[in-house]
């Protein structure tokens, strides 16, 4: 009896909170037919915003993947001064509000910010331009790869790596022949999560972007603009693209089976 009630409650809540919004996005986006959906998606400004979002993700994801591997590896394998601090800092981007994250960059690089004058003198535009969006997105997605790898590396332990060392492998050989192949699955999923978040980030990007149409509007910002201007069908069509990214991420996770040590 308890089981039935609990299961029902969980299903009902899930239906209300997840399934209904997803259904609404799809109904609104496709309600006027595939033709209308395609017209909205292939609209000039929507295409530009998609391109910008992809461009930003293409910059941010590799950077955070490299950082994530380095950070997770260092945190899992070595004890060094500042390790606890690094662990705490790693979680900061997840715990701090994205709007605050965006504001930090405005305070640093904005016209009135700490480096604002210097940047203006050297004619470098960061806030209300693409570099600011890249920075804000990188900040928000910073821990995603590292957080995915860290538990795996800790559960694997360092025996295999020490074994490789005693067998004559150099540091790089240990990494490429032993450590990296064993983290590939988790890395792929971390990259995927990072990508989905980079494409979907709204709060932090909204603060630093300046909403310059056709220049600093990413896909999520564009969805908001369309919605504010009462282009509901177009807004939902654009939103359905983001939904697609999310669903694809989950499907790929199902495909990837995590390695279970040895």
């Amino acid at each position, binding site marked *: 009896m308890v089981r039935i009630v609990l299961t029902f409650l969980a299903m009902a809540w899930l239906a209300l909170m997840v399934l209904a919004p997803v259904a609404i996005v799809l109904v609104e986006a496709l309600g006027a037919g595939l033709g209308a959906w395609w017209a909205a998606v292939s609209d000039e400004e929507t295409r530009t915003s998609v391109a910008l979002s992809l461009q930003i993700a293409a910059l941010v994801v590799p950077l955070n993947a490299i950082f994530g591997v380095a950070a997770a590896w260092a945190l899992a394998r070595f004890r060094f001064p500042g390790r606890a601090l690094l662990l705490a800092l790693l979680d900061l981007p997840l715990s701090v509000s994205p709007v605050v994250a965006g504001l930090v960059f405005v305070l640093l690089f904005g016209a009135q910010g700490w480096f604002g004058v210097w940047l203006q003198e050297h004619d470098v535009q960061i806030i209300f331009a693409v570099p600011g969006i890249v920075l804000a997105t990188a900040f928000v997605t910073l821990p995603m790869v590292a957080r995915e790898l860290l538990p795996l590396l800790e559960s694997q332990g360092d*025996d295999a790596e*020490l*074994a*490789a*060392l*005693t*067998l004559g492998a150099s540091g790089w*050989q240990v990494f490429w*022949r032993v450590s990296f*192949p064993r983290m590939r699955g988790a890395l792929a999923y971390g990259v995927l999560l990072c990508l989905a978040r980079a494409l979907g980030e709204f709060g932090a990007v909204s603060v630093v972007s300046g909403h310059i149409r056709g220049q600093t509007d990413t896909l999520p910002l564009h969805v908001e603009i369309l919605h504010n201007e009462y282009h509901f069908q177009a807004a939902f069509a654009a939103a359905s693209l983001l939904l697609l990214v999310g669903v694809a991420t989950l499907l790929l996770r199902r495909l990837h089976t995590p390695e279970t040590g040895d």
Partner: protein
Amino acid sequence: MSIEILGISKNFGAFRALDDVTLRIGKGELLALLGPSGSGKTTLLRVLAGLEVPDVGTVQEDGHDLTSLGARDRNVGLVFQHFALFPHLDVFENIAFALRVRKRPDAEVRARVDELLHLVQLGGLAHRRPAELSGGQRQRVALARALAARPRVLLLDEPFSALDAKVRHELRAWLRQLHEELGTTTVFVTHDQDEAFELADRVAVFHRGRIEQVGTPDEIYDEPKSPFVLDFLGHVQWLEGLGLATLGVRHRDVVLHAAGHDGWPARIERIHRTGPRVRVDLQLHTGQPLIAALEPSAAREFAVGQEVRAVATRKYAFAT
């Protein structure tokens, strides 16, 4: 290749893992480091492998100082307690690893790995993953992998502890035989005295970071130099008040006689069979318990509740 360990100490924070350890390992020897957990034996093995740097002391090989040489350059073969095979590589590539990182030509790698697969009797399993092997098979892969680059010393950390009893006994005999074939200087760590005694030429007994005694199994069994060694080998009863010093008596050294004979008066509390011997629990008239491990034929004469005389054919007394 003789190895000299000279005055090595190693601390982990406030914990003294090794305390002024000196030990000589002869060429071709099979040496056991025996002791309870936390006694320093594994730390010494890791120092030999180059995975730990001692705080004080040196490791020398034929007069050359190895102390600061890293694990990569020592050319030792180390077999980990849980084998630490590479789960993403098959048996062949696991064994080939040391040759691959040395960039040996393919033909040479193939020949050497085939030779090792034959040696460890895993010929048909070259393309299995470690996850598809039994514990005993993994152990042999780990051994073959450690031997691939012809190490100067083979080090084994609790090599049989992750295996079940039957496989453990088979592999012990096999390892002893392998050592005789190869003649590689071998050091292994164990907490199991049967394992140490059955396999090793010499045994070093560890206690709290120090070596209590080094010797052949016979020397250690017959002439334990400290109460700890006698106690650790097990099946011993400590008796007080029967003389000046505390006496250690092994269960198997206790002989029982009918009342009236010389010996300690005692009453039989319990008799039960434990494997090849019969264990007789006695209570001495002084109130202390004593255990006799008798041959079944000798035990047949006695019954629970009977008053007897106990004689220790061999007693160990240690100056304190």
